């Protein structure tokens, strides 16, 4: 494996002994990102868009260059298709509030994968309540597999939307989104793809996948918190009504109403987060400089190492099965007889950050019949030593809870 990337991340200098295995919750930030945002505030901070002076032109350029970088990163056809939001959650709500309320009615159906994060489930529950549309779930097997047949069978002439994550934050399995998109489109159904866990870790090309919408968060891809993205096909975004209303998203306002600005500004009400966008731009630059070849090679190797070690430990169950290739940087697990909160506490005592609970996927946990689980999730800044420490602690968990072995 090539050189460790830990040195690029100041948090690991601050806490040299920490093992951070919660990157699916939020990623750590490289110095390049932290510095890019700070530099923006030192050198180009102004309210962009309406700027008639030099600093404001700089801010506008910084913001629109970031948008262009995102466009290129996910292979969108036009920068008009890139809307900056706060996070993936807001992106998904935007679709439900704007597209959903305008286009759905009581006869329609929304199909949601049962493994979805609450952020790709509750907005659809809300939409169903508001429009009277019927919400249905597509179920996976215990490995997190959705078959094309099951999808075909679940789609009806009334299905307007199918919502699914490219990578679930519990299973870590990559779903065949392009194939699902084709099946949906044959049926006249739009596909909303939650890319929160995929965009940071694998190359994502919206045109190759042919998804109608893609939502993701900056903070999971080494960018600052508070910036996210909604990609939507231009024709769809074009006809959607605005979501948030206010400054900067209008062409003209009278007492009676308003004409809205062109894409993508129509969906960016109020003063935008230029600092966050600049940070995201820097994060994309950083990811490109490492390269997905290295990122994937490293993450897959560490995932395989983890799964292989874990499946040798007795009383451990890996959610989604023991095949290393099915887990992309995410390994969710249970330890027989030990509650996940106790597992996390034990890891914490050893300086290892893992997550415990339902991982914002309660319906999936109900579906799988486990109330909660523990999860380790990694990024390319992790190394073999991190995995070794993780495995060593995992081996002690039952003993430290008083079990004989």
């Amino acid at each position, binding site marked *: 494996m090539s050189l460790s990337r830990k040195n690029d991340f100041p948090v690991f200098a601050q806490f040299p002994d920490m093992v951070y295995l919660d990157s699916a919750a939020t990623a750590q930030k490289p110095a390049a990102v932290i510095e890019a945002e700070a530099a923006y505030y030192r050198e180009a901070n102004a309210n962009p868009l309406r700027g008639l002076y030099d600093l404001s032109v700089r801010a506008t350029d910084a913001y629109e260059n970031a948008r262009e970088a995102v466009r290129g990163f996910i292979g969108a056809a036009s920068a008009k298709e890139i809307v900056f939001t706060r996070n993936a959650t807001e992106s998904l709500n935007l679709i439900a509030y704007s597209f959903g309320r305008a286009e759905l009615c009581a006869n329609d159906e929304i199909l949601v994968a049962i493994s979805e994060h609450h952020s790709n489930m509750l907005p659809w529950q809300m939409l169903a309540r508001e429009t009277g549309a019927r919400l249905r779930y597509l179920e996976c097997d215990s490995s997190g597999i959705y078959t094309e047949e099951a999808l075909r069978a679940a789609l009806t002439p009334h299905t307007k939307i199918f919502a699914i994550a490219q990578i679930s934050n519990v299973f870590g399995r990559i779903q065949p989104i392009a194939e699902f998109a084709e099946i949906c489109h044959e049926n006249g159904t739009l596909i909303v793809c939650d890319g929160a866990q995929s965009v940071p870790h694998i190359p994502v090309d919206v045109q190759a996948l042919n998804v109608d919408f893609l939502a993701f968060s900056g903070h999971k891809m080494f960018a600052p918190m508070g910036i996210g993205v909604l990609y939507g096909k231009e024709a769809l975004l074009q006809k959607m009504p605005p979501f948030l209303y206010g400054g900067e998203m209008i062409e003209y306002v009278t007492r009676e109403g308003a004409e809205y600005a062109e894409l993508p500004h129509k969906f960016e009400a109020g003063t935008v987060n230029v600092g966050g966008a600049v940070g995201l731009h820097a994060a994309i630059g950083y990811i490109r400089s490492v390269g997905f070849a290295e990122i994937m090679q490293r993450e897959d190797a560490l995932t395989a190492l983890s799964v292989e070690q874990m499946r040798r430990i007795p009383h451990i169950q890996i959610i989604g099965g023991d095949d290393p290739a099915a887990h992309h940087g995410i390994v969710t697990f249970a330890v027989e007889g030990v509650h996940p*909160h106790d597992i996390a506490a034990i890891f914490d005592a050893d300086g290892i950050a893992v997550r415990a609970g339902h991982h914002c996927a309660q319906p999936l946990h109900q579906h799988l019949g486990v109330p909660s689980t523990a999860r380790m999730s990694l990024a390319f800044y992790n190394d073999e030593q991190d995995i070794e420490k993780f495995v060593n602690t995992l081996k002690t968990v039952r003993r430290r809870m008083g079990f004989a072995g």
Partner: protein
Amino acid sequence: MPDNFYDEVLIDHNLHPQHLHGLPGATCSHAGMNPSCGDEITLHLTVQDGVIADGAFTGVGCAVSQASADIMLDLIIGRTVEEARALTALFRKMIAGDITPEELEQLEEAGALQNIARMPARVKCALLSWRTLEHLLEPDAENAV
């Protein structure tokens, strides 16, 4: 078991809870929940003439919430409702970190949970059964004593 993660008392009550079972003759029951953790404990009491004659709990949860429930039942079975209320108040005082050594003694084994406050995310777990008890002992609660 030299390197138990939690206090010996807590580990023991979690692994071998005395009171984790149904209570057919219960005069009152109440389900308490930490929804964000998934912890759920139903507390059953048999109260006669103002005295907690028997008690038990059912449900799932982490070691802290399970042990806390078991220890609590050990402590309150045989006590009056008044005494149980006072102990609950003491337990909250301990968690808040302002209990005197004399008071701590009254809590007996529940004192094993004193250090849980250093793990803020776990305080809710420790309190779950006590909150549920408080609810049952409230004079005007549904299904109350």
